[in-house]
């Protein structure tokens, strides 16, 4: 019999960290304030007491240095989980991620793998303004040699870490900061590893496909609910994996619904939404009854005041309107 508990996304991440640390001696967590402070978003709160300062390792403020050290430790046989507080500070570590982690296997002719997991919080919505609200998922999704995933549910928040640690290559886990307080059910007995290669249909529907990920899923589900009230049946797909993309699941849906809307918190120009839209056009052009719509973030550094921040971000209203446009309603 499987039992289930109601926990938060944050607790699910913490449980995954605890399970990983408990089950594999090679695993350690490293990052700014992951120790006594418990991490910027409290994901690792308490773990240093359980596992000690060697395995829950506070780092100095040195994103490039400790990310690179994570790469080296992975080469040396460890299974490091590097926590970069947020994607905004990950900008300081991109050289190590793109020039080293992503290339080592290839430029050594396949001699090494880099079994490194990097977790980071991402996204806007907490009124943290222009330097603390980036959504740069597409930057990472652009880079061969790394895998990028984004958990939107409680089971994924737990399961993706396990799967990422089992992956021989660098995996970036992008956790949306707005999700940490979300609550949901977690089944205790399930083998919680998840298939990192597959997108998931979060709500089935017939007339349009909404493709999204991360915090977008909740908004898309809300939009789908409202559309249902108006008699429109929309399917919601959660990409889950941002690199590689699961074209199969997306195309199967679009070939059925003939309409697609991509919801992406990235700035519109150069967004992951553009990639998904392009793939749909490339692979299902003749199945489409309307051009693919995008609902993205406005092209503005995220402003501080709530009304402006919310106006900049994708919202259910915008998603509803976009679906209706594809239906010419």
């Amino acid at each position, binding site marked *: 019999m499987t039992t289930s508990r109601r926990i938060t996304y944050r607790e699910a991440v913490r449980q995954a960290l605890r399970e990983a640390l408990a089950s594999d001696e090679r695993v350690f967590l490293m990052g700014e304030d992951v120790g006594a*402070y418990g991490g910027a978003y409290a994901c690792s709160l308490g773990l240093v007491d359980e596992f000690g300062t060697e395995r829950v390792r506070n780092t100095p403020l040195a994103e490039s240095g400790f990310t690179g050290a994570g790469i080296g430790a992975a080469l040396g046989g460890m299974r490091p989980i590097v926590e970069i507080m947020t994607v905004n500070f990950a900008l*300081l570590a991109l050289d190590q991620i793109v020039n080293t982690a992503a290339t080592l296997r290839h430029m050594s002719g396949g001699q090494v793998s880099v079994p490194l997991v990097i977790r980071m919080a991402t996204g806007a919505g907490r009124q943290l303004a222009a330097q603390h609200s980036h959504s740069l998922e597409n930057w990472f999704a652009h880079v061969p040699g790394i895998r990028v995933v984004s958990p939107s549910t409680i089971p994924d928040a737990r399961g993706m870490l396990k799967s990422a640690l089992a992956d021989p290559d660098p995996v970036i886990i992008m956790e949306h900061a707005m999700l940490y307080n979300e609550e949901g059910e977690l089944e205790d007995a399930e083998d919680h590893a998840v298939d990192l290669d597959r997108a998931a249909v979060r709500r089935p529907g017939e007339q349009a496909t909404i493709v999204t990920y991360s915090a977008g899923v909740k908004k898309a589900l809300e939009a789908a609910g409202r559309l249902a009230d108006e008699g429109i049946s929309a399917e919601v797909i959660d990409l889950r994996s941002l690199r590689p993309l699961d074209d199969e699941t997306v195309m199967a849906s679009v070939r059925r619904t003939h309409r697609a809307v991509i919801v992406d918190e990235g700035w519109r120009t150069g967004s992951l939404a553009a990639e998904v839209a392009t793939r749909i056009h490339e692979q299902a052009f003749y199945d489409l009854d309307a051009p693919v719509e995008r609902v993205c973030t406005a092209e503005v550094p995220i402003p501080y005041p709530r*009304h402006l921040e919310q106006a900049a971000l994708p919202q259910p209203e915008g998603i509803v309107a976009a679906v209706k446009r594809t239906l010419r309603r």
Partner: protein
Amino acid sequence: MTAPADRRVHLTHAHAVDLLSRMTRIRRFEEACAEHYSAGRIRGFLHLYIGEEANAVGVCQALTEEDAIVATYREHGHALARGLPMGEVMAEMFGKAAGCSRGRGGSMHIFSVRHRFYGGNAIVAGGLPLAAGLALADRMQGRRRVTACFFGEGAAAEGEFHETMNLSALWKLPVLFVCENNLYAMGTALEISESNTDIAAHAAVFGMPAETVDGMDVVAVEAAARRAADAIRGGEGPRFLELRTYRFRAHSMFDPDLYREKAEVEAWKTHGPIVRFTEWATATGLIHAGDVETIEAEVAEEVAAAVAFADAAPFEPVEDLLKDVTTPREVAR
């Protein structure tokens, strides 16, 4: 706390009242911020400066209007010490269009170009190269200005810190680096983040004169800053001050403050910059009990007015969302 002649500080009654008044303004302003944060009027991250007021106030004494300041996300104190109107700063925290950054920045991004106050930079160490660049512009244009750059001891671990120390020393840039060493970077104590906790040494190794000062002593800070600013204006290149200080509040309003002992915090509070200066200045007869009362009354009024101003100010219309991403062409020409 003493005030010897060589400190270049003229401790008249007026000056003492001024120092105390400036520190008190910051303290009471931020207490009000904490209140309005709890009430939901201020959002996002709010980093209080309480306990560290002597740093900003002391250093700003050494600066002229021509000089520039670059600060961090914990910059309300610096903004007020620099002379930004309290109402504009509070309105900024409230996200109002009347805010100094038109509400776009919030607590972490206080800007005021007319005060040459260049933020409000929320990436740790990110403001340092900026300060070096402002100073480079001054040097290349033959201006004898100082750029004061404030940051925490946590920034010293970042590569950008060292890159900027080198650039500034190498090019003899007129920067006054002010490291406010409050012993913690969020929950990380200095001794677990630096192999050598002597922050001044990390500047000195670049050949930059570096001094460590008691940041709880506003007079000592002012004196050190005046010496440093004079040297910089004299063309001697950058100077570095490490101010030993402590924050009395949590890192931000999100921080449950679990990583340090209550007793440690309380011990520091007993020799906080305001209480210490007040006691000393009263004991030496430099100021009187009446001065303190007057200051508190004036400040209370100023804070109340600032809150009222911020409260009454309108939000920017949502139609303006895309404003100020790039510079309008008319402005540019």
